């Protein structure tokens, strides 16, 4: 599904990613862990083609993202859902409109948008909040909205960059359970975090990055 082949990314003289080799299979749930500045976010951003690696090759669903044409990047990004630590919801749009945006940019019909958004909001259990604006939501509800926005287009992969970073432990667990459920439907999930409790409790594959290098990659791993 996702293959990093000798991927390096250099900003000036600093290596943000240093010779990364990683393979993630369809339907896997992978934690990317490591201290701040280790390269977790850079790794995820190479997957959305926000950042081009300095060297190496990244393949997502058989597509070499380093060689993808600029005009094809939007189509590629529709296969990848993204969830951020700070939610990145649009303040002037309701929960429903924020989620609908994913399908609007894909030029789906109004009928299809209505149906898919309703279905997704019910899945993430915020259908009753659909007419509220982000400022009226709690942290957990905002992150559920962001997750709904990421999955409403039925992406193959969901990238979650510190999705629980701004949440209290109880709410964070709710979000993790939701991501776990999404993964159980077959969606590949890569989640960058440095929350040891979540990583160690969930017992999924753990890839540890330090100074841009993968130092450990273990199934049902631990993060200490």
């Amino acid at each position, binding site marked *: 599904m996702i293959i990093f082949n000798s991927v390096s990314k250099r900003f000036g003289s600093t290596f943000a990613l240093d010779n990364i080799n990683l393979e993630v299979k369809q339907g896997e749930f992978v934690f990317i862990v490591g201290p701040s500045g280790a390269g977790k976010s850079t790794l995820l951003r190479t997957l959305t083609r926000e950042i081009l690696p300095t060297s190496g090759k990244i393949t997502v669903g058989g597509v070499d993202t380093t060689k993808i044409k600029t005009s094809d990047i939007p189509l590629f*990004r529709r296969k990848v859902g993204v969830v951020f630590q700070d939610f990145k919801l*649009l303040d002037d749009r309701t929960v429903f409109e924020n989620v609908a945006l*994913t399908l609007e940019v894909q030029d789906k019909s109004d009928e299809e948008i209505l149906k898919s958004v309703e279905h997704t909001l019910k899945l993430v259990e915020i259908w009753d909040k659909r007419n509220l604006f982000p400022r009226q939501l709690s942290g957990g509800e905002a992150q559920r909205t962001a997750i709904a926005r990421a999955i409403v287009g039925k992406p193959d992969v969901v990238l979650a960059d510190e999705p629980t970073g701004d949440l209290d432990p109880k709410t964070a667990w709710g979000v993790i359970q939701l991501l776990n459920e999404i993964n159980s439907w077959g969606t590949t999930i890569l989640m960058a975090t440095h929350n040891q409790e979540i990583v160690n409790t969930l017992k999924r594959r753990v890839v540890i990055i330090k100074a841009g290098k993968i130092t450990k990659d273990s199934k049902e791993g631990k993060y200490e």
Partner: protein
Amino acid sequence: MSRAVSFAKRNIRRTPFQALAASMVMFLTFLALMIFIILAAGSQTALRYFESKPQVIAFFKEGTTDTDVSAIENALQQETRVTNTKFVSKEDALQIYREKNKSDPALLELVTANILPASLEISTQTPQDLQGIAEILKKEPVVSDVIVPEDVVQTLTQVTGIIRVVGGATVGFLMIFATLVIVMIIGFKIRLKRNEIEIMRLLGASSSFIRSPFILEGIFYGVAGAILAWIISYGLLWYFTPFLQGYLGEVKLLPVNPLFMLALLGGSLFLACFVGGLGSIAAVRRYLKIQ
């Protein structure tokens, strides 16, 4: 396209003051444009009117007989340059005077047929023929004065030229100014919405999807300004028509032909789309880098 329109509408609603400022600048630009076009078209019509009616008017001395007038008319009709002659007797002149001043009884009381001289109006093929005919008439002993409207044509030609040059320069400057204002406002909005653009980009929006609402917004400002300017200029023209008609006399400029005003609206809308589109495309190219 409908989605781009709804996104553009949302952009406009979210920043109403910028939208108003942009529309007002476009309104002033198009108001100036329309006023200059109406002035240029009006002076051109007046010029054509005078050019199409090249006339020399010869006024006769007191005591000129019908025989004298007929002799002069007969001689002029031999001239190929002359297309028509019309004798205006003292009584006819009084009638014309009365008609023109019917609203002012004081002026009517003061004038009798004896005060007004009889005259002969001579039309020529071209305005260039007027001077030659005037010279012939001046030699006639019964003619007291000869009026050649060549000066009117010359003055009107100059005025039309000035309107075109000054109007063209002013409108050109205002168009550039309006385009720059659109660039500035759309650029400002792009910066204001950089978060939204970033999110849309990550959700897989194409460049055209992100750009088209901004371009439509620029076009909207142009079109709104042009329509408002057209309504105001038509309204002003309609309001002042009775007043202006008194000055224009026989020159049939007013009321303005509605077809002319519709053509003006059509042309302005086209130009508004061009200026608004150009400004917003420039802003999008300058400030909206999508990867």
